[in-house]
């Protein structure tokens, strides 16, 4: 009985909200007020963070490598923009529609990714992104083609909070959507369902041998992640009032993977941390050398991989001679 309690606690403490988590979210929600002049970049960070968290669900927790995650981001962005332009300007309704549409797209695409090896899967994800970008380009009567979808006017959030030029409403809106979806994702990865995903990631053969329907689980999580990526895309379109072909670009799929690698996979907060680091670096470096900021990002990534994330954030372990030997 005593044992039963201790083990139960061990499983439950991992899912319980820790004080630093609560502090982080309070800080995030306060940031548009505290850093009012930087509301625009805070908004961008929240969007990238949501996009990266959605990728973490499939890459970090399930082990599906995708180079076409921007397909769903773009689908969400265009859906939200078109909905606002053609149907109604309410952001929350538009958000819901964008999530539904990109979830459906994810469900369709999931049928292709559950077959084949890792490499074929990678190619398929890449292909889907390219197909959608070309579609958005060709259907210019609807999407505006290469000029992008302009003239999107968003209504106020909850009928009350207008999107302002300073971007403060936008930042709060994006952080709120991020928080809601993050809480759902957090719940999911700590559930029995989430545990079976990790089992599939760690050992697919054994996952099957304990009765886990592997292909079904893969398609479910791929679909969920697609819906979440769509929400991130919708945030971008709604807060900028614009959608362009750029949302489908390959570099967006690659960037979000970099963000996740910077922050760490299989952890959910990796997406958030990566988004903060990546976006701030991009902002700072491009202010200094507008042309060459990708060089410095590249250098940072190489150093990160060579040195290791754990050591990079613990500078005192770099020179053990001066700071005493680190514990083995």
């Amino acid at each position: 009985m005593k044992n039963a309690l201790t083990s139960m606690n061990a499983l439950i403490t991992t899912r319980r909200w820790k004080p630093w988590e609560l502090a982080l979210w309070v800080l995030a929600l306060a940031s548009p007020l505290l850093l009012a002049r930087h509301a625009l970049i805070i908004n961008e960070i929240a969007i990238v963070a949501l996009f990266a968290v959605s990728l973490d669900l499939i890459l970090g927790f399930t082990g599906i490598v995708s180079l076409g995650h921007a397909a769903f981001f773009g689908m969400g962005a265009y859906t939200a923009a078109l909905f606002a332009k053609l149907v109604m300007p309410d952001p929350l309704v538009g958000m819901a529609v964008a999530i539904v549409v990109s979830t459906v797209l994810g469900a369709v695409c999931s049928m292709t990714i559950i077959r084949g090896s890792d490499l074929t899967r990678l190619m398929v994800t890449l292909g889907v992104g390219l197909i959608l970008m070309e579609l958005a380009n060709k259907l210019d009567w609807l999407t505006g083609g290469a000029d992008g979808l302009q003239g999107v006017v968003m209504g106020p959030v909850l009928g009350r909070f207008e999107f302002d030029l300073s971007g403060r409403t936008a930042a709060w809106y994006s952080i709120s959507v991020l928080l809601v979806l993050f809480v759902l994702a957090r719940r999911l990865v700590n559930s029995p369902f989430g545990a079976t995903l990790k089992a599939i990631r760690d050992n697919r053969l054994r996952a099957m041998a304990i009765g886990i329907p592997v292909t079904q689980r893969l398609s479910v999580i791929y679909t969920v992640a697609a819906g979440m990526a769509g929400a991130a895309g919708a945030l971008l379109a709604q807060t900028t009032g614009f959608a362009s072909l750029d949302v489908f670009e390959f570099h967006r799929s690659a960037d979000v993977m970099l963000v996740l690698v910077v922050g760490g996979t299989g952890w959910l907060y990796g997406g958030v941390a990566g988004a903060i680091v990546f976006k701030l670096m991009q902002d700072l470096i491009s202010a200094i050398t507008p042309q060459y900021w990708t060089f410095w990002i590249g250098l940072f990534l190489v150093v990160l991989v060579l040195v290791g994330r754990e050591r990079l954030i613990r500078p005192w372990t770099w020179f053990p001679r001066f700071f005493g030997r680190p514990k083995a």
Partner: protein
Amino acid sequence: MSTSHNETVLSAQGLVMRFGGITATNNVTLNLQRGARHALIGPNGAGKTTLINLLTGVLEPTAGRITLEGQDITELAPHQRVRRGMVRTFQINQLFDTLTPMETLALTVSQHRGLGGKWWQALGSNAAVNQRCEELLEQFHLTSVMNQATNVLAYGKRRLLEIAIALACEPRVLLLDEPVAGVPAGEREELLQTVAALPADVSVLLIEHDMDLVFSFAKRMTVLVNGTVLTEGTPDQIANDPQVKAVYLGHGEEAGHAQ
């Protein structure tokens, strides 16, 4: 002999498995009775693991039929066969390296009880699942390491977890592929006693090289050589079978001469 012992639970008929030009399994017919303690023996390369892979659906047979509880399962996916009560262990540990033994067993028990699709409740919030995990951890001496990542566990503990995972699925048919390989001699008996102590209606097929263990465990034995069934019978019959002696002792004498 009671009638229940004559009831076939798992049956393989005329199984053939060809990899290119090599025939790994050649027309194997094997019947496992309810409550069987059945051993599958044979020299290395006889096709024992291939047979397990065919039975569990990891490999698709070139020809032949497999039935479980009278139903044809030849076309079923591995996880569907598990759902029908057939569970295996692996010769080489197949574990979830980044998870702890507690997490591993909790997710296995949850999956077995139909909770594997639940995404809203937390793992560890179901008291019945937790209690079952506790029993398994206790039974397999894993309680002291239950919160360590599996990939840092000592080999012996990993091997115990390998078996514990299978039993967490509450099998009706259990296929054990060299379960005590690499387990220290002192712990082998105990591990097999755990298996022997399974409910009397659970059928067990054991692959094992240690002949002392095989003869102390099995009530019935099948000898596999070069992908074909050489013979089947009680341990006494097998021990006195001249063909089996030729296969095993023949090898032994050759090895003896070589030294």
